[in-house]
């Protein structure tokens, strides 16, 4: 019953526990700062990130924060950004939008970070942008880790800057490539049946590619067992070229099962599920991957001839405990390098506004590992827009088709697909930006 007066030891004990718990956690992490802008002092710039560190979405992504911090530490050891050292506050959101909002609130209201950098996930970023209302608070939401095209709307998300090309762009460029190289072949598609995969469908439609058989799968249902069903369908339809638009565990299951069921096709892996290092970790034998094709906007993490990759591998050895250098580590360090340049572009008198105008004004000339041009401009918050195609060799390395990286760019709308003439800026001396 509703027993007000009967509150006994149990309730009191747990209530006391809860209240004292709140009191402990209310102790502010940061005393007050001398600088006018939140999260910036004379000696420090505090950034924050929400990302899954635990739970089923954590594998792979949980490596990102420490790799970002590794590059920041390198910059810090070499003078920081105008004398200020960068620190990254990391919060685990377990890939849940509710937690992403709660943790971002902690980042902003308790840890008082200057900006959010590299937050992961479409729904999470959408929820955060609206509920925490980063735009109204004027807090920069830099380089969100998602290919959702909606963040291009700078009016709706005024402080959000996306970096990666959208899934629509990827599918458009891939579609064009398929039309040029595999005309007349039977085409198959496996895609994740949520915004990630359905965005891809939009892109393929734009490019005018029709698949003879397409197999959707529910996110999280991928396994060797369900992949037997996918492969069965592709086999029955006689697909000769198969596009895989899913996460790494799904493309891993598809490739391994295809080999187990003696199904041969020309595989084309999307960039999300195409990381060779992770594919090998989930049990795809090298011979299965050999000859498959993949798309990417970054150089392959195994390409040691690339000056950026080589430099980041060095940082990884010295500052990141020699973690396995895969696409996630490369993405993280590249994002960190972009962030350092954004902070530099914000000037000595660093403010939220100065960082964002710095990105809009000079972001397109930043040094980054990507082979795609960067499109930042006034009111344009979309970063990369291009992909290159390659084929996995017998060592599982993605090598550009035709020997040299040739990048195609497009937009998320009806825009044309063009061969890029972009020449990537050289790696700054010692990997330390001087913009």
């Amino acid at each position, binding site marked *: 019953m509703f027993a007000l007066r009967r509150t006994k030891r149990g309730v009191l004990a*747990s209530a006391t526990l809860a209240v004292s718990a709140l009191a402990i956690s209310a102790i502010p992490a940061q005393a007050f700062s001398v600088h006018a802008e939140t999260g910036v002092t004379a000696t420090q710039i505090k950034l924050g990130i929400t990302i899954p560190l635990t739970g089923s979405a954590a594998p792979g992504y949980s490596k990102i924060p420490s790799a970002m911090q590794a590059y920041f530490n390198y910059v810090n050891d070499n003078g920081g950004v105008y004398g200020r050292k960068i620190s990254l506050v990391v919060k685990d959101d*377990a890939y849940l939008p509710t937690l992403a909002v709660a943790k971002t609130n902690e980042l902003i209201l308790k840890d008082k970070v200057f900006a959010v950098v590299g937050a992961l996930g479409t729904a999470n970023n*959408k*929820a955060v942008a609206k509920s925490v209302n980063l735009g109204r608070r004027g807090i920069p939401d830099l380089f969100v880790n998602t290919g959702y095209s909606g963040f291009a709307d700078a009016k709706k998300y005024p402080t959000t800057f996306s970096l990666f090309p959208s899934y629509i762009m990827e599918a458009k460029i891939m579609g064009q490539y398929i039309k040029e190289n595999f005309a007349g072949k039977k085409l198959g598609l496996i895609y994740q049946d949520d*915004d990630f995969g359905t965005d891809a469908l939009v892109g393929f439609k734009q490019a005018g590619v029709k698949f003879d058989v397409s197999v959707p799968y529910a996110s999280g249902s991928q396994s060797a067992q369900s992949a037997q069903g996918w492969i069965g369908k592709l086999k029955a339809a006689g697909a000769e070229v198969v596009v895989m638009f899913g996460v790494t565990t799904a493309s891993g299951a598809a490739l391994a099962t295809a080999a187990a069921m003696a199904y041969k096709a020309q595989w084309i892996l999307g960039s999300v599920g195409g990381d060779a290092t992770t594919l090998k970790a989930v049990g795809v034998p090298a011979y299965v991957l050999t000859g498959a094709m993949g798309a990417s906007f970054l150089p392959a993490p195994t390409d040691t001839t690339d000056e950026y990759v080589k430099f980041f591998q060095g940082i990884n050895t010295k500052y990141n405990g020699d973690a396995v250098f895969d696409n996630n580590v490369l993405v993280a360090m590249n994002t960190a390098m972009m962030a350092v340049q954004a902070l530099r572009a914000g000037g000595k008198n660093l403010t939220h506004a100065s960082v964002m105008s710095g990105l809009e004004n000079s972001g397109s000339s930043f040094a980054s590992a990507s082979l795609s041009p960067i499109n930042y401009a006034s009111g344009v918050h979309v970063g990369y827009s291009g992909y290159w195609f390659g084929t996995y060799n017998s060592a599982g390395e993605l090598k550009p088709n035709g020997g040299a990286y040739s990048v195609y760019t497009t937009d998320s709308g009806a825009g044309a697909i063009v061969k890029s003439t972009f020449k990537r800026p050289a790696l700054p001396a010692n990997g330390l930006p001087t913009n």
Partner: protein
Amino acid sequence: MLKRKPTTQVQIDMDKNIARRKIIGAAFFIFLGIALYVASNIVDELRVYQGATVAVYVVAISSIILLTGYSGQISLGHGALMAVGAYAAVLSRNYWNFPIPLTFAVAVLAAALFGALLGMAAGRLSGPYLAGTTLALAVGLPSLANQFKILGGEEGLTYDVGFPPLALGQDFTQYKWFFWIAALAALAATWVIFNVLGSRYGRQWRALRSNPTAAALLGVHVARSKVLAFTISSGVAGLAGALMSMTISLVTPSAFPLSLSFAIVTGAVLAGVTLLTGSIVGAVVLVAIPEVTAALATHLGGSEKVTSNLPGLMMSALLILSVLFFPNGPQLHRRKTRKS
């Protein structure tokens, strides 16, 4: 061993106390409302946001307390019912532009209707069979949002309750607005549940929970009574879902994972599952503990593997300890001691 031992004494409530209790109850709610109003003006914005989350959990936990603590049914799928409420609210908002209070009413009705159907099907089931069915629902239902374009898929639908009215002043933040709405809804929901539990139905449920056979002999329609409890509980869960979506401004399947269903059952157990007022304690603990454990983990330091798993470790340990040491909730504990 863990089987419920039927108590021979069927609890039939003392009617003369009811009127007096209702007055005390009403006074309590008014006092609580004032206290919350004052609190929302002195604590900082993060606490106001967390207060809104607490209010959401209060509603969600109440739905479990009503269902499990009073009618003796188990649900591991209330997260799915929250999803039903949330989607109903956002659709009525986005397509018919319903005013906010009406979207909450839609959430309650939709979830209650869904719960009634489920309750009718599941009414014949008990214990682990019901647990299994609701668990399967929690896993299966949210993913359906990707099958229907109208539901917005994984990227979700924006749920916008608008900015606070200007009359409340310039510095009245969005989160304070969320908090007011959620706290008011929580008070109202708790008030309604309190009255339902004090009514004939509430007494029937308790009789049913203590001894189904005796209750049936006394004329309680067992199946109908159970379905009614499931329906009301589902409606309350639907409200919680709509409120939760308001606090994150988004309705998306990933906001309703299996862990949400588990979390609210956990909250109900921490609350002492037969004590409605306990819902506040349960809710505060659910919101506070992750923050405290995360802060503690950062403080303790260690390798990344350790720090990222430390909050989960502490949360789980706490859960086990609380079930071991306050298993029956304070009220049953009291009843037992009195008997002996």
